[in-house]
């Protein structure tokens, strides 16, 4: 099985990062880390590849920088990476990101595309579904459990109240939730092997996009302003008069947790 896994390098969430005051874009440091949610996609890809003698290729659209985040995923065991790194892509919206990734994935060939549900820096949450549409395969989203069937994939799709069982034939796209599997830690051996694994770097033009078809020029959305999140308000204290649990249940229902 040829498995394409979409991954993203993001600024280390442990260290606060800046937004450019004019463009409102994330200022990306040279050393970025693998988005934590992508470790789950990589792990699902590796497990499926190990079971089918398949390959795992990583796809990422971002400034390469030191490639530290990509090497993290290669050290886990992915076979190769395709990076689309191009100044013209700066300011791309989610749809352009999906178009570029879809083009790169189609060019490489695939049986299954795997992505996280959303990135931890952008949070648009639409890229996986858009890619599925663009490469014209069914999308199985929000998987909390994945299994291979005869010629297809079956998942448990996370819903507000439980899960649905959803099935599709290959080729297909799969988006996985955090917790779908226990991602492995890269071993030292894996880190050393990752240094020798191929990383192809492409431009938008290599994929047939002209400068005006990508980046800020083609963005269908613009960020007009950015506001800091409001300071947290004081929490509510429920005094237990013997029936405090009822108030807590009511509160939890109110915020739709239960």
């Amino acid at each position, binding site marked *: 099985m040829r498995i394409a896994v979409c991954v993203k390098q993001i600024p280390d969430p442990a260290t606060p990062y800046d937004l450019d005051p004019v463009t409102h874009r994330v200022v990306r440091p040279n050393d970025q880390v693998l988005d934590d949610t992508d470790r789950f996609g990589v792990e699902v890809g590796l497990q499926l590849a190990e079971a089918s003698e398949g390959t795992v290729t990583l796809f990422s659209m971002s400034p390469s920088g030191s490639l530290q985040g990509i090497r993290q995923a290669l050290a886990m065991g992915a076979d190769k990476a395709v990076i689309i790194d191009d100044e013209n892509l700066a300011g791309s919206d989610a749809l352009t990101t999906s178009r570029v990734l879809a083009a790169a994935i189609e060019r490489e060939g695939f049986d299954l595309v795997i992505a996280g549900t959303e990135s931890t820096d952008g949070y648009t949450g639409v890229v996986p579904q858009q890619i599925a549409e663009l490469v014209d395969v069914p999308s199985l989203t929000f998987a909390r459990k994945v299994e291979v069937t005869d010629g297809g994939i079956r998942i448990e799709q996370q819903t507000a109240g439980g899960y649905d069982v959803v099935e599709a034939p290959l080729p297909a796209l799969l988006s996985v939730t955090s917790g779908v599997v226990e991602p492995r830690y890269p*071993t030292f051996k894996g*880190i050393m092997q990752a240094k020798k694994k191929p990383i192809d770097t492409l431009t938008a033009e290599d994929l047939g996009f002209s400068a005006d078809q990508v980046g800020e020029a083609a963005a269908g959305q613009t960020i007009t302003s950015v506001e800091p999140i409001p300071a947290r308000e004081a929490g509510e204290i429920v005094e237990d008069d013997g029936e405090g649990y009822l108030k807590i249940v009511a509160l939890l229902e109110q915020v739709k947790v239960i």
Partner: protein
Amino acid sequence: MEFKEEHVAFRKVMRDFADAEIAPFAREWDRTKTFPLDAVAKMGDLGLFGLPFEERYGGSDSDFTTLCIAIEELGRVDQSMAITLEAAVGLGINPIAEFGTDEQKERWLPDLVEGRALAAFGLTEPDAGSDAGATRTKADLVDGEWVINGSKAFITNSGTDITSLVTITARTGPGEISTIVVPTDTPGFEVEPPYDKMGWHASDTHPLRFDDCRVPEGNLLGERGQGFRQFLSTLDDGRIAIAALAVGVIQSCLEESIAYAKERISFGKEIGAYQAIAFKIADLEVAVEAARLLTYKAAWLKDTGRPYKHAAARAKLFATEAAVDATREATQIFGGSGFLNDSPVARHYRDAKVLEIGEGTSEIQRLVIARGLGLPVR
């Protein structure tokens, strides 16, 4: 000073692993004096026990610096788990990898390197520590078997459920010390109840007894009579590794103290606003940086094939004494809370003292250093 790319990447993995798989349980293992077999299995899955050993036995062919990084990062969250790794690799596996025949390595290394089994090193005796020449345990060659009688003391990893063998030093003739591998299922090999220690509660430490314990002649490790030279080389590596444990514990004291000094209010201000506290924390930062530099310089000398005996003693002496100072000062910063076993610095304080003792006391390190300077000291 710059670490290689793989060292930086591996340190990140170790930090994540230690924070997620070890740190949340360290307090409980300490309290209940539990040797956590499941955590050791996870360390095995991560390839930690095989780091510096050959790939053909399942190892990763890493340098010594990489092992020190693993020990430091484990030591930052749990000194017991760091010494478990240090002893397993440096004392348990290393003598076999270094002095074993191909056949001995093929027989014993794979399980040890994968972390499925642990080996211990039995050098110290009730009446022989750094004065190893005073070893009393005897091994007599009778009908193709070594018949071992004697006892060993303070042996790390010697009594766990997965300990498969103990390599011991024993007298094999007049003025002759040899190294012999004793599988733990050998009749006459007795693991005595664990010590009641001041710290390192989750680390496994026992006295051992040998009563007419018979192992095949082929269990001799290296040349007969070379035991003394062999363990001396084992100890030099161990000293750098113990320094790495010390660096880890000082790093934790620094991080814990910064967090506490920003959070704890006294006389209307966070205590980090008082020079009495802030200056202690500044000193902790200097201590960890100095200890780290000495430790990784010694590791670098070893990795690049240069003499490192002197540097190893220097790193061990400075880093471990700095660790005892750092844990005492961090406990002081925490005040009354620091005296409670629920605070990590209390555990660190109890754990640090032994660093000045094990693998050569501070006094022995000073002796090695002074002799290295050409002084006629005895």
